[in-house]
């Protein structure tokens, strides 16, 4: 364990420094291109857009989601809203039925078949050149759509634009930790956008050109992560995806660790299985940075978290074992030991500096992500919650996702 273990650890440390430096270099190269617009903008031409809201038992949030679409700063006649009830068993249908009088809202009701079937129903009825989805647990900023559409206006070759997803109304430290994670997500998404290597087109308000679905087909189950599968498929066909950093969408996040666990289990399971499905694109130059950077980095980070966890368990058990030996040898003799602080005993090994460097760059990504999301510089308490929560719980959902993949069991949505 020691020598080979140390070498593996060194390799992971090297990789994580490499990845962080890669992002930072990308940032330095493109920092002048990161523009955060304040206030209203106008487009030369307002293309008609359809936003589909698939909903399955969303009675608590659906009303606000629809309201956020209605108050969007976009010409009403150019924005069509599809409310697609996917066989809800709660009050969702009666809430969405209140919106029948709006001329730009169309309501669909279908048997429950999963989110991708609801989206495909939307695609089937699509009459506009642009199609977006807004998850029913999210609210869009009034300026978000017009900012997204400005990207399409500038670049006719652009096929999809993803927004900045921000945590709505975080109330406890579990949500706080996710808030920090989403800040980081904003930064990384922008960097991946510069690299042409975005791997998820998230449910909250990604807008696609209709051509994507005409050429590549509709949504697929995608191991319950249809928003990842469509992004993989687009990357496989080299369809360009960009990130519009100043289009904000606020999303509700799981409040408790078990709920977060289920959500992440689904995401990681989706990641592992979509990656297995699309393994053919790995390490092929023609698929660009998505194939040589994003996917390998994600695979390495899953492996690293798993490895580190095994290592921590090993270290902890050898610590417990040494305590047992001590007990066997001397019993409970606490003795009079003076713990005098001596800087001599601070272990300044190579990885000490590298770990500090990596953490500094991670903090930078959170801080800069926050600036892109909220326009504020600085640290927040949420950033401190992030590390304990994610480092303690993530190995478990990772391992369960691996286990489920092996025994071929699909995780539930909630």
């Amino acid at each position: 364990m020691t020598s080979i273990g140390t070498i593996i650890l060194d390799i992971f440390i090297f990789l994580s420094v490499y990845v962080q430096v890669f992002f930072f270099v990308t940032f330095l190269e493109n920092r002048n291109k990161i523009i955060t617009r304040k206030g209203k903008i106008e487009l030369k031409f307002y293309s008609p857009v359809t936003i589909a809201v698939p909903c399955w038992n969303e009675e608590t949030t659906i009303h606000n989601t629809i309201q956020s679409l209605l108050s969007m700063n976009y010409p009403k006649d150019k924005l069509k809203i599809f409310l697609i009830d996917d066989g809800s068993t709660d009050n969702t249908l009666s809430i969405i039925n209140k919106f029948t009088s709006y001329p730009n809202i169309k309501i669909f009701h279908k048997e429950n078949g999963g989110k991708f079937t609801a989206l495909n129903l939307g695609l089937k009825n699509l009459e506009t050149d642009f199609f977006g989805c807004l998850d029913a647990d999210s609210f869009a900023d009034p300026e978000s759509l017009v900012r997204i559409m400005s990207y399409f206006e500038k670049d006719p070759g652009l096929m999809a634009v993803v927004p900045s997803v921000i945590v709505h109304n975080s109330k406890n430290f579990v949500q706080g930790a996710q808030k920090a994670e989403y800040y980081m997500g904003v930064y990384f998404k922008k960097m991946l956008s510069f690299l042409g290597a975005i791997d998820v087109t998230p449910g909250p308000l990604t807008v696609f050109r209709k051509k994507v679905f005409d050429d590549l087909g509709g949504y697929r189950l995608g191991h319950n992560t249809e928003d990842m599968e469509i992004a993989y498929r687009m990357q496989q066909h080299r369809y360009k995806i960009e990130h519009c950093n100043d289009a904000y969408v606020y999303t509700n996040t799981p409040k408790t660790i078990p709920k977060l666990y289920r959500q992440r289990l689904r995401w990681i399971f989706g990641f592992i299985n979509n990656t297995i499905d699309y393994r053919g694109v790995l390490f092929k130059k023609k698929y660009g940075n998505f194939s040589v950077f994003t996917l390998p980095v994600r695979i390495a980070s899953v492996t690293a978290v798993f490895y580190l966890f095994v290592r921590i368990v090993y270290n902890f058990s050898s610590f417990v074992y040494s305590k047992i030996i001590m007990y066997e040898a001397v019993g409970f003799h606490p003795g009079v030991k003076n713990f005098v602080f001596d800087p001599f005993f601070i272990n300044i090994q190579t990885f000490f500096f590298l770990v500090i460097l990596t953490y500094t760059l991670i903090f930078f990504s959170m801080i800069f992500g926050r600036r892109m999301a909220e326009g504020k510089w600085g640290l927040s308490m949420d950033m401190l919650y992030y590390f304990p929560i994610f480092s303690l719980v993530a190995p478990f959902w990772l391992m369960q996702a691996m286990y489920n993949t092996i025994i071929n069991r699909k995780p539930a949505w909630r």
Partner: protein
Amino acid sequence: MSDTFDWKKYLIVLLITMGLFFTAIYLSNYFGNQKINQLKSIQDKISIDILSSETQFSLLSELSCKNISNSIYSPELGELGSKLEWSQKNLGSTDEVAYLQKYYSLLQIKDYLLAKQISVRCGIKSAFILYFYTTAANCSMCEQESLVLSTLRTEYPELRVYSFDYSTELSAVKSMLQIYKIKDTALPAMVIDDEVLTGFQSVEGLETRIKDSFKLQSAANPTPAVKTPAGNTKKQ
């Protein structure tokens, strides 16, 4: 697509990362060397202490035991021991650490001889244990014995434990192994009052022997004992 694949960037980032790695290795070596230097300076201080104690002891033939100062024992010996042990674990078994380890063994022997002489001459209450261990794997008893000895040391400040790695390449240590006929198959081994004990010794068993050792001393030397400072030796 505008984002054509750019090998150059991957290479540049690799170079930067390697640069960072080498800087980190350099810094780590720099601090490692500083620690070695710190160890060296502690050793120098101890060797001066011992030399001074020896000189003081020679003078003692003309003076009475009342004049023995507390400084006759080197309190840094224990500190050096634990720092050396730490360095072996964390800095790796470099030549420098091995060299310091040898020097440390020598200082221990000198301290042992001197402390024993002073104790006999001036009737200072003390007990001595020479402890032989090995760092080779599969000596779990050595680990346990070390814990026993450090427990006893905190309980009996008058107990002085000198620990020697069996594999130390030093003639003085080798002669001790010969004198007490210690074999690597019978480790851990201890010498207390010239008696050799092999295998694991429990706290209770050793405690009786230490007390016996104190008694022997007071029987041989009825002069009132002079309180000595805590004799810390290497924790191993």
